């Protein structure tokens, strides 16, 4: 069975997160253009996500914590429950984000109640965002972006083990900081980590530079047998794996996630704009759309298929 994928698969959804669950559904969440809440939709194929009904399952508070700029939600299924990780600021400090998590014990996360489990506390109270989690050898890990006042730039990437889905435990270490030219255009940024286990390694993509056409995706990896917290084993690829491609009108691709097709084909999910010139702050330009592309592996290197437009894929 095949279906036709039309990119972008979802318009005006940035920081897209797609996860394929054991119930056969692809679940989709992303940042809304007005950053007011957390949208969720599901469909049995990637192509059907385009028209699937969307429900805002959680809305920002009117004041105090979690009252402004709800960014980059991710849906995870951990030990039998659903969790939404997201970053939020306060209406009186709209860029001072912290990370929060919601829990839902329904079988279908579009139903049931989302319970606020609070802020995820890290080594310091500072700008923190873009949390993701993964399990490895029966341990639950958390990777996120955060500002270190001692390091120039906006954010670096950190890792910690989790005691439970809302609490970190043990040492916290930095696994990436903006260092290459392509990570430092406009702003010094490493953010939006996404985890993928392949080839005996754990790969983490991340997004770098300002969120205009300079935004791009870099790649880290570590041997799956190594200590995840030992930053000496995390290797950063010297070149980005996904950047602006004017010939196909995709500008500032980034903040990706990963999923697969029914036949196992690896899919990268990311946002991009289809124009370069932005009026005002890129953050308030609503046209970061969600794109998907298959990729394959050449040794240690993911090789993205060129642009996918109106293309048939195995459902």
């Amino acid at each position: 069975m095949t279906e036709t994928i039309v990119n972008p698969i979802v318009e005006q959804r940035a920081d897209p997160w797609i996860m394929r669950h054991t119930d056969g559904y692809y679940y989709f969440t992303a940042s809304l253009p007005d950053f007011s809440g957390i949208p969720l939709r599901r469909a049995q194929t990637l192509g059907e996500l385009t028209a699937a009904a969307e429900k805002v399952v959680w809305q920002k508070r009117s004041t105090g914590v979690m009252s402004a700029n709800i960014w980059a939600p991710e849906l995870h299924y951990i030990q039998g429950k659903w969790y939404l990780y997201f970053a939020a600021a306060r209406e009186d400090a709209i860029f001072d984000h912290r990370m929060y998590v919601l829990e839902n014990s329904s079988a279908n996360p579009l139903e049931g109640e989302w319970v606020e489990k609070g802020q995820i506390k890290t080594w310091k109270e500072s700008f923190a965002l873009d949390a993701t989690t993964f399990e490895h050898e029966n341990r639950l890990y958390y990777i996120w972006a955060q500002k270190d006042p001692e390091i120039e730039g906006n954010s670096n990437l950190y890792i910690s083990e989790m005691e439970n889905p809302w609490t970190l435990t043990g040492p916290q270490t930095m696994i990436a900081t903006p260092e290459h030219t392509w990570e430092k255009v406009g702003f010094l940024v490493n953010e939006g980590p996404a985890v993928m286990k392949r080839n005996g390694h754990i790969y983490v993509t991340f997004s770098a530079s300002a969120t205009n056409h300079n935004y791009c995706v870099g790649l880290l990896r570590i041997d799956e047998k190594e200590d995840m917290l030992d930053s000496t084993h995390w290797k950063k690829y010297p070149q980005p794996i996904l950047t602006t491609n004017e010939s196909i009108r995709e500008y500032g691709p980034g903040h990706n996630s990963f999923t697969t097709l029914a036949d196992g084909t690896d899919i990268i999910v990311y946002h991009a704009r289809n124009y370069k010139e932005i009026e005002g702050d890129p953050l308030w330009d609503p046209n970061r759309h969600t794109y998907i592309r298959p990729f394959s592996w050449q040794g240690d290197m993911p090789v993205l298929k060129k642009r996918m437009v109106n293309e048939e894929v195995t459902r």
Partner: protein
Amino acid sequence: MNQTENRNLILEQRADPWVYLHSDGYYYFTASVPEYDRIELRRATSLHELKDVEAVTAWVKPDTGPMSDLIWAPELHHIRGKWYLYFAAAKSREIVNGLFDHRMFVLENGSDNPLEGEWIERGQIETQWDSFALDATVFEHQDVHYLVWAQKDPSIEGNSNLYIASLKNPWTIQKPQVMLTKPELDWETKGFLVNEGPAVLKRHGQIFITYSASATDENYCMGMLSASEDDDLLNPDVWEKSLRPVFATNDAAGQYGPGHNSFTIDEQGRDVIVYHARTYTDIEGDPLYDPNRHTRAQIFTWTMDKQPYFGKPT
């Protein structure tokens, strides 16, 4: 794995490795030799060149007397313009009340280059008890030199505990000595009750002392103490002890019983832990006479709450 193996291996068959990067740009190296009969010194401008340079024998044990056997764990220090070698030695291999019978000794050399010149015996470091004592290390803090070492307290069960005292001169401590840690946690008491091999690291406003614990087989591992640099280092209450080992056997990489470390920085200024480990667990007879504790080194980093993070030996 072979690549990793080669990268971290510094010298074969050298245990209790000590590396000191001096202001002259040389990495100085000494360690226990498998024969335990002498003190070797070598120097190179990088850690990896240490295996390519000729070792100089700085000192050979006499045939008889208190320094005539089991020369262990030498360390080279540069204190107020002179070089000092700290080491432990016994009068024989005889085991007395379940322990070897080491004491700590000091040699002095006034040359610029410690591979040259003459080493003068400054004698035994006298401590609170005439008992098994070893693994002396020295560090300076706020113009005071301190000695940290391992010793048997006749009233405490086990092989050795760690002690600190300030130094009146490089071979004389200011009494009383203060105990910093004793073997009490499960990972410190496997095979033998051991705390030994202290190594000092000063960073980020803190003073860390790593040490080695348990028997010198695959159970050997490292613990850590820490204090703030503003604390009174002679007050045992200021030292916080890690409840878990900070460095231990890594089966997946075939690195067993890592320990007896020292600290340095590599040519790029990155923090490096230097340690010994075996590549197998099947030791015939006493682990002490198995020569294959190899000197290894690897880069380490820091956690966000400013603790060193050594990872696993690889």
